């Protein structure tokens, strides 16, 4: 039996609808997203409880040290988002697939957001413990530069016009290849920022637990945002396609 043109149209219609409604129409997959959102909420709630009621108050810095549980997970998630974004940018330049570009854009937008979180919490903490909100320490400086690179990425995407996607990908890659030097420069050139306290095991077990829960919460929040952002990106791309289709078939808006 040959498929009639009407069948074909119906199929297209279904595909379009499923794309516009945010991806997979299977019930299981539909539950996955709300479940992740809920878990993220619960984990962040549990994290706040652990931070304020279970983890001991730090001897020297006191209550201000609680910023640690936001500052550090935000920085780690930011680096994760940056790595995903850079990897996707490499993939985009190598393959020119729109999906890779969408992943890079979404991920780097979130990296900017988490980076801002780090840049807001850091000076608050520093003001109380170092007595100054900002120090031209190597790690602080390079983190700021990284954030500026991300903002440049977003600006180029927003105002660059056609061809800006590739250019922006180049910015992301240049910005990321500098990262290893940034990370290890702290060892080479001592600054005020503490070096890797967590990986060297200088943390009270309850503090570590609170940190891990907060980190898991932040990771899930990142996943939720990323999924939502990707769905928006797909819907936008689909909408553009539909506009073109409508124009081609003479359905131009009046």
């Amino acid at each position: 039996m040959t498929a009639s043109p009407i069948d074909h149209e119906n199929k297209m219609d279904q595909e379009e609808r499923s794309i516009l409604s945010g991806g997979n129409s299977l019930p299981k997959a539909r539950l996955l997203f709300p479940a992740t959102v809920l878990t993220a909420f619960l984990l962040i709630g549990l994290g706040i409880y652990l931070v304020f009621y279970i983890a001991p108050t730090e001897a020297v810095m006191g209550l201000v040290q609680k910023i640690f549980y936001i500052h550090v997970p935000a920085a780690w998630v930011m680096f994760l988002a940056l790595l995903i974004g850079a990897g996707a940018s490499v993939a985009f330049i190598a393959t020119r697939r729109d999906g890779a570009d969408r992943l890079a854009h979404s991920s780097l937008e979130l990296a900017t957001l988490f980076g801002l979180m780090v840049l807001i919490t850091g000076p608050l903490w520093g003001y109380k413990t170092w007595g100054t909100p900002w120090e031209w320490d190597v790690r602080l400086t390079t983190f700021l530069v990284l954030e500026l690179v991300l903002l440049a990425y977003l600006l180029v995407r927003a105002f660059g016009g056609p061809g800006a996607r590739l250019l922006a990908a180049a910015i992301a890659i240049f910005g990321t290849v500098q990262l290893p030097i940034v990370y290890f420069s702290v060892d080479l050139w001592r600054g005020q920022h503490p070096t890797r306290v967590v990986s060297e095991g200088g943390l009270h077990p309850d503090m570590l637990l609170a940190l891990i829960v907060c980190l898991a919460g932040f990771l899930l929040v990142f996943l939720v945002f990323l999924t939502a952002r990707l769905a928006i990106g797909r819907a936008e791309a689909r909408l553009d396609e539909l506009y073109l289709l409508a124009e081609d078939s003479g359905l131009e808006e009046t």
Partner: protein
Amino acid sequence: MRPFTQAATILRKDLLTELRSGELFASMLLFALLLVLLFSFSFTRGEDSSPESAAGILWISMTFAGTLGLSRAFDREREADGLRAMLLSPASRGAILIAKAVGILVFMLITAILIVPLVALLFQVPLVDSIARLGILLFLGMLGFSLLGAFFGALMAKGRSRDLLFLICLYPLSYPLLIAGVLGTAELFSGEPVRARVELFTSILVAFDALIAVAALWMFERLVVE
């Protein structure tokens, strides 16, 4: 032709063009001169001339002059549609990038030869012993900067709002180079440089240059489409 010969040919063309007009070099030099004088007046006015500010002023002036040279160099290519001609020629993309970067690097280094003594004079910096090391630092810093500049300059040759975006791309990405260069230079200008620190900043610059060169060559091949 091999890539090396191709790059040399393009470089020779750029240098010849410049020798005949002198426009790029004269404006870069004058701009750098103006910046050094302006910065040293607004920051120090002759008193309290710390080696840190001398190093900063030198590097910022060089960077700004380099930016001016870069945008003019690519304006020139655009006016005559030279970039398209080069892309249509059998020259490899990598050779074009390298030639453009080296061209700007040459102009920046000549500017530096004239600007460095001026800074040393204005800030009474001991220069005789450290001139070779300063030369290496400047060479490495400017190399990375001109590679980045040539990369984005060529890619943005005809994009929308290119002047604005060019600066927004170039400055944050060359910031690490500038930091390492300024710190190394400040160490040299301090009178009693700690050798290990100067070497540290020199090797950081080498690492940045290598990363930038590899990334730029890899991407340039894939990004430049006519």
